[in-house]
């Protein structure tokens, strides 16, 4: 479980995250929704430590991520997998080396064990015979799958997905959604997903957090969203034609 407590973040005096508290549950697909510029990505970057919060606390289980040293954070980071919007695969490395990268950096696995794990992760995301290909040889959907394979290589406890469906056709989007949901349940991990895609939300979302202009407007289960009474959230849904 991840908990945010009163986090604040501003850039050059402009408040981007304003006193946000939220909970992200284990074994659930936790969705963060909101319009572009609402602060979703900044919140995710603060959660994984790419940005430092100005104020507040972020708990991974019982560990306060914000007040930990770099080395202590590193231990938590090893339990984090992240799927980036643009996949962020290393261009200069093959698919195999991309997935093997965290294994080689952080484990003492033999080359054989690393390859076994890489092949397992690739099978898990339904890819085969792509080990020696480079990211530039892959389609958008395949890149996302490789990104997921890399994210789960170290058996993470926490999976962060930033706009996992962006740039994908509807069918591939659904396949990626299903894959993320399956992995979340199968490995009982805490998954946090930033998205605009309301179809994804209604198909696989468990816990929903709606952010509007840096403030948390609403938090709750998917089933309660239509009866939330939050005008902005309902307008956001309506604008998404869902």
């Amino acid at each position: 479980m991840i908990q945010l407590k009163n986090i604040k973040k501003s850039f050059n005096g402009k408040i981007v995250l304003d006193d946000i508290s939220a909970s992200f549950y284990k074994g659930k697909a936790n969705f963060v929704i909101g319009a572009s510029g609402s602060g979703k990505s900044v919140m995710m970057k603060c959660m994984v430590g790419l940005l430092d919060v100005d104020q507040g606390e972020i708990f991974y289980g019982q560990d306060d991520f914000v007040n930990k040293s770099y080395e202590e954070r590193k231990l938590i980071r090893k339990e984090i997998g992240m799927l980036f919007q643009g996949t962020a695969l290393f261009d200069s490395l093959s698919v195999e080396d991309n997935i093997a990268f965290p294994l080689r950096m952080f484990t003492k696995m033999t080359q054989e064990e690393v390859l076994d794990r890489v092949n397992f992760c690739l099978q898990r995301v339904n890819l085969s015979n792509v080990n020696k290909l480079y990211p530039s040889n892959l389609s958008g959907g395949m890149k996302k799958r490789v990104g997921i394979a890399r994210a789960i290589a170290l058996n993470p406890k926490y999976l962060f997905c930033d706009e996992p469906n962006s740039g994908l056709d509807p069918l591939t989007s659904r396949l990626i959604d299903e894959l993320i949901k399956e992995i979340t349940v199968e490995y009982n991990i805490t998954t946090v997903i930033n998205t605009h895609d309301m179809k994804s939300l209604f198909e696989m979302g468990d816990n929903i957090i709606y952010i509007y202009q840096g403030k948390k407007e609403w938090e709750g289960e998917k089933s309660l969203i239509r009866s939330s009474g939050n005008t902005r959230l309902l307008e956001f849904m309506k604008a998404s034609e869902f």
Partner: protein
Amino acid sequence: MKFFEHFGNYTMFLLGLFKRPERFKVFSKQTLHEMSSIGVGSFGIVSLISVFTGAVSTIQIGVQLVSGLVPDYMLGTFVRDSNIYEFSPTITCLVLAGKVGSSIASEMGTMKVTEQIDALEIMGINSANYLVLPKILAGVLTIPLLVVYAMVLSIIGGAISGVMGDIISVDEYVRGLRVDFVPFSVWFALIKATTFAFLITSISAYHGYRTEGGALEVGRSSTMAVVYSAVAVIIFDYILSDILLGA
């Protein structure tokens, strides 16, 4: 004010490189890869530049030594000294500022805007240490070797153009090469090459690493890297000459 801001950020960037080093095995592998990229990858252009620099310097110095007061063999001496002291280290490094500098800046810039650097950071890897330090180390190790190679080729190029243009015989040229040779001149060139290598790789990496935006900004970073590296090379050429050769 902008200069001081950049200088401060550049200093902080350099200090950050040495914090939290990654595994030695990974680091050494990266460094070897970069040495191949910077060193072997620059052989062709350095060869071409060096041969022609030597050839041109022989012709131009030869044209000016027509008085008869200076012995012919001195042409070899002048070509040797001008190439070892100045042309080989400085021109080679200016060319490398373009080739290696733009390559480093665009690679780092692209990694930054496509979130590859963020991916490293999330894994708990000091991205500056992992990506930049091997490039600087590789540059500092290989560029001086390229400069020595350039010295040899420029002197050979000078001999070829001297003989082909009927400016000087090989014997006279070699005699000139041997006259009053100061071994420190090679050390001077190596000190310059090492300093230039550090400046080119670190300035280029700095500009690439702080890229924000998209393709346009990557191109801008690449241009800035080449311009600032070349300017730094010229300024430090003067500073090192003054310190090491000045009265």
